[in-house]
């Protein structure tokens, strides 16, 4: 490889490795992107409406206006991610042409295909995808995802689903790595994932890509808990700009994500932050409005 080679699996997953230990923040304007960068975000996620607004306003949620994405890319020097609908490969082509650094094939938007996810291998831009369990994570990686995040229940401020997903994924990896070689055939069948990938996870005791947590993270303590549960980093969606004091809350979540084992730091940064986002309990959501069930 004596020439510069772009878009290799290593280059795609490499950017996610650089984001580890960081906080990725949802932003809907260039001003918010700048605030996020100044507060210590490791990347921003550009979208038209934060999940809390998608929930309250309803309707079909789609890729953002290209003008908005251009403005956000121009406003910051940190990586810019943007969301495409599940299965909407043309939205992904458009986002790649705009020069985003990562595409989130996201259940937060309305799915465009209820059977197929995007074939992510042909793209130069890397993809992050949501997963509720190990099998789902491995299927997304098989389709070319270079980073996995939990789905959580975005826009609720209720972290319980994110907790369930990260515990499930970590628990299933632990169980897999305890199996003998001859048990992995059935494990692959049960996980509905390729045997080679299942063997790799069993051997390495981790996913072959970075694992972040997303969905319902609203406080510094939420972020630190996700890190203690084994996340490589956190996405914060509505939790920052739907709160009373976005600047201070963003800084506090960044600090707590770094010092995630230090309860004193987490206590200090949690003082006087004002109102957290209002929040909806996931158990109060009617099943058709639960995002974690989108994607398979």
């Amino acid at each position, binding site marked *: 490889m004596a020439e510069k080679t772009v878009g290799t699996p290593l280059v795609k997953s490499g950017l996610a490795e*650089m984001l580890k230990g*960081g906080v990725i923040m949802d932003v809907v304007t260039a001003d918010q992107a700048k605030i996020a960068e100044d507060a210590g975000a*490791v990347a921003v996620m550009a979208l038209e409406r934060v999940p809390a607004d998608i929930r309250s306003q309803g309707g079909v949620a789609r890729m953002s206006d290209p003008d908005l994405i251009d403005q956000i890319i121009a406003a*910051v020097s940190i*990586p810019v991610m943007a969301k495409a609908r599940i299965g909407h490969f043309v939205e992904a082509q458009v986002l790649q042409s705009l020069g985003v650094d990562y595409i989130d094939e996201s259940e937060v938007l309305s799915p465009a295909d209820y059977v197929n996810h995007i074939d992510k291998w042909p793209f*130069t*831009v890397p993809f992050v995808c949501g997963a509720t369990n190990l099998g789902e994570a491995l299927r997304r990686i098989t389709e070319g995802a270079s980073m996995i995040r939990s789905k959580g229940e975005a826009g609720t401020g209720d972290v319980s689903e994110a907790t369930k997903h990260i515990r499930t994924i970590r628990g299933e990896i632990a169980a897999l790595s305890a199996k003998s070689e001859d048990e992995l055939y059935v494990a692959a069948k049960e996980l509905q994932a390729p045997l080679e990938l299942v063997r790799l996870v069993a051997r390495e005791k981790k996913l072959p890509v970075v694992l972040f947590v997303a969905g319902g993270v609203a406080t510094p303590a939420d972020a630190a808990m996700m890190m203690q549960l084994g996340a490589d980093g956190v996405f914060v969606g509505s939790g920052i700009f739907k709160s009373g004091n976005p600047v201070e809350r963003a800084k506090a979540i960044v600090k707590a994500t770094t010092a995630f084992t230090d309860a004193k730091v987490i206590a200090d940064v949690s003082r006087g932050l004002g109102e957290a986002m209002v929040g909806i309990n996931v158990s109060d959501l009617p099943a058709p409005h639960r995002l974690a069930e989108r994607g398979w």
Partner: protein
Amino acid sequence: MAGSRQTIGVLALQGDVREHELVLEKLGVAHRQVRTPADLAGIDGLIIPGGESSVIDKLSRIFELREPLIAAIAEGLPVLGTCAGLILLATRVIGAIDGQQTFGGLDIEVERNAFGGQLESFEMSFDMPIIDGEPVRAAFIRAPIIRDVRGCAIIATLPNGEIVGVRSGACVGIAFHPELVGETRVHAWWLNSVVAGAQR
């Protein structure tokens, strides 16, 4: 030689800390994560990993590591900075965010994201005169380029002349990630030729 009673610190505020630790483990070198000023005591060298330079800068101030790090570098602590780590060692940064600071150590000017965004990130093999044998393989992830080297020695240049590695005394900065691709020779060179020979 690498491994003989050296303990290397890895600045663990944000970024690809684990990948550097894995290289050190492959080379049989003891390592420790540096998160507080106390963690700097007794280390023979420090790696500043890849990540977001603006974020690592902020976190180093928040967790009161900035001044101790500057003092340790000034006293001759051997340092290896990769990508964001290179930016944090440079005295001047093109494309920094408002208020972004660096630790210094390399009197150079470096340009952030100089190749472009992630679509322009790449991997390649290239010759490094300090590394014998096969060309070095490495990944460049939204990487910087060194634009002005002043008195520093150039240790890595791409075939088109872009400067991607410099050394000044015990301080080494590279724009790329050997640690992402399982390339251990750059770390081994730094341990054997820079850390082992440091006068402290």
